[in-house]
């Protein structure tokens, strides 16, 4: 392999050339081969391309849970921090769900840890299918999972959480010939306080509280911590902007129908 001649890389690396022979890449390569089934760059690729592909592979690997392929805790934390940032700046609603497989210990104790792993994998797959591509599902640890749903309005959040619960309930996991298992999940969730820069710890705790509620109330159910919601109907909005209608009718039409960001848009109970 020839040392790189890419000036871009050269300017950013301590040495102006890379000699792959001097690097011990075998372990990293073996790991990627084994874990990721990663295709290596073609032989004509430059040394830096080759190295980059290994680095990319390792980065990807460091963000994944090995058993389920979901995001791991490290990745989860980064995504959660980013979500908080977006919520604070845009007021966009975001939902954090914490999920726990009910009576999972029984699966392990009765059918063995391999069966347990199969259940975890099946449930993981199921979770991935219930959310949008922009959402992040993570294995939080053990039989606990978490999902971050950015730009998620209340009606959607409740529907997704319930869909997850139902889909897992309907799931049949064949762990060995003749043995099929059914499990359920308890789901707790909390919306990030819009416009407020919260912390990962506080947000997670709020979702956790709801998860414990779901567990205590008999499992296989969903509890969401709603934030203060205020409903402002379209009729109210139209009346509110009445004074503007005389001056600027053209752009009023664009704004009267839906609320931007939804800091006060989501509907449900009246406060009284």
């Amino acid at each position, binding site marked *: 392999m020839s040392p790189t001649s890419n000036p871009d890389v050269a300017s950013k690396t301590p040495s102006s050339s890379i000699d792959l022979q001097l690097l011990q890449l075998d372990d990293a390569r073996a790991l990627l081969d084994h874990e990721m089934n990663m295709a290596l760059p073609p032989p004509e690729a430059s040394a830096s391309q080759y190295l980059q592909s290994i680095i990319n592979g390792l980065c990807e690997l460091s963000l994944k849970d090995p058993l389920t392929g979901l995001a791991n805790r490290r990745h989860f934390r980064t995504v959660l921090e980013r979500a908080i940032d977006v919520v*604070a700046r845009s*007021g966009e609603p975001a939902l954090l769900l914490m999920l726990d497989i009910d009576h999972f210990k029984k699966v392990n104790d009765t059918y063995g840890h391999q069966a347990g792993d199969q259940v975890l994998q099946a449930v993981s797959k199921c979770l991935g299918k219930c959310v949008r591509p922009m959402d992040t599902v993570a294995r939080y640890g053990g039989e606990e999972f978490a999902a971050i749903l950015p730009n998620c309005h209340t009606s959607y959040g*409740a529907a997704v*959480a*319930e869909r997850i*619960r*139902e889909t897992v309930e309907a799931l049949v996991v064949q762990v060995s010939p003749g043995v099929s298992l059914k499990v*359920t999940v308890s789901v707790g969730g909390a919306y990030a*306080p*819009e*416009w*407020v*820069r*919260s*912390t990962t710890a*506080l947000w997670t*705790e*709020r979702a956790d*509280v*709801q998860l414990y509620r*779901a567990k205590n*109330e*008999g499992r*296989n*159910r*969903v*509890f*969401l*911590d*709603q*934030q*203060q*919601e*205020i409903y*402002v*109907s379209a009729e*109210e*909005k139209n*009346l*509110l*902007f*009445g*004074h*503007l209608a005389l001056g600027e009718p053209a752009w*009023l039409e664009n*704004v*009267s129908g839906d*609320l*931007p960001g939804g*800091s*006060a*848009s989501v509907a449900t*109970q*009246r*406060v*009284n």
Partner: protein
Amino acid sequence: MSDVIQPSQPKPPAAAVPLKPLGKVLAVTSGKGGVGKTFVSANLAAALAKLGQRVLVLDADLGLANLDVVLNLYPKITLHDVFTGKAKLEDAIIRAPGGFSVLLAGSGMVEYSRLTPEVRDDFLRIMSGLVPHYDIVLLDTGAGISDVVLFAVSLASEVIVVATPEPTSLTDAYATIKVLVGQQKRQNIRMVINQTARLGDGRAITVQLQQVLDRFVTTEPGRPIKLLHMGDIPADPTVRQAIMRRQLLMQSSPSCPAALAIAQLALKIEDAVIHRGA
């Protein structure tokens, strides 16, 4: 096993039980961010100080407010140090350029943005200790409607809602007013309309809000909601200049239209809140 999704019972927000508001505490709030809430708080404080009032502005957004940015102040000791026992309250109160006092929360206070009973008690204790030393305390609250904002507002005897004529701001202001009326049983809410284009726009907006409230919000008999129009602050290019230079408008351009409007507002507040409460 129940197939029915359990209706989520929202935890009662921290401010659901109205506290006994402290005297002469004025919360400055808004539904939406970016309507000039902190700008109004800081310059109103300067204008009140000029009238000879002893004014304290408290960053009631618990570290998320921009008061430090607006005033160009970066104190070493903040409310956070008082909370954690690292400093005394007196040391956290600093003098702002406009002749008023400021208590900044400090970024560590973000940790308190979920109001546990302990945090509420601490905050309440600190507030009760502060109020007697000033003619008026302004609470610069956070944007949006959160536990912290509602709690801060619940401590105040008076509340000003700042809005701009923009539809998003009006909707959020309206929503905030609904919550304040519903949760805190507030009857009187003072309105300041910022960035108005024409004389009289602000009053028209307040009237409009009042009409929609009257039609859609039912209150207990004999306890109607009253929006009190306190004033307009006209859109004024000087404001932007002062903000960019991080100066108080009341100091850098005391005779520009917006500053004159804020001086008028201060007179009204002095009359309605400070004198009446005395």
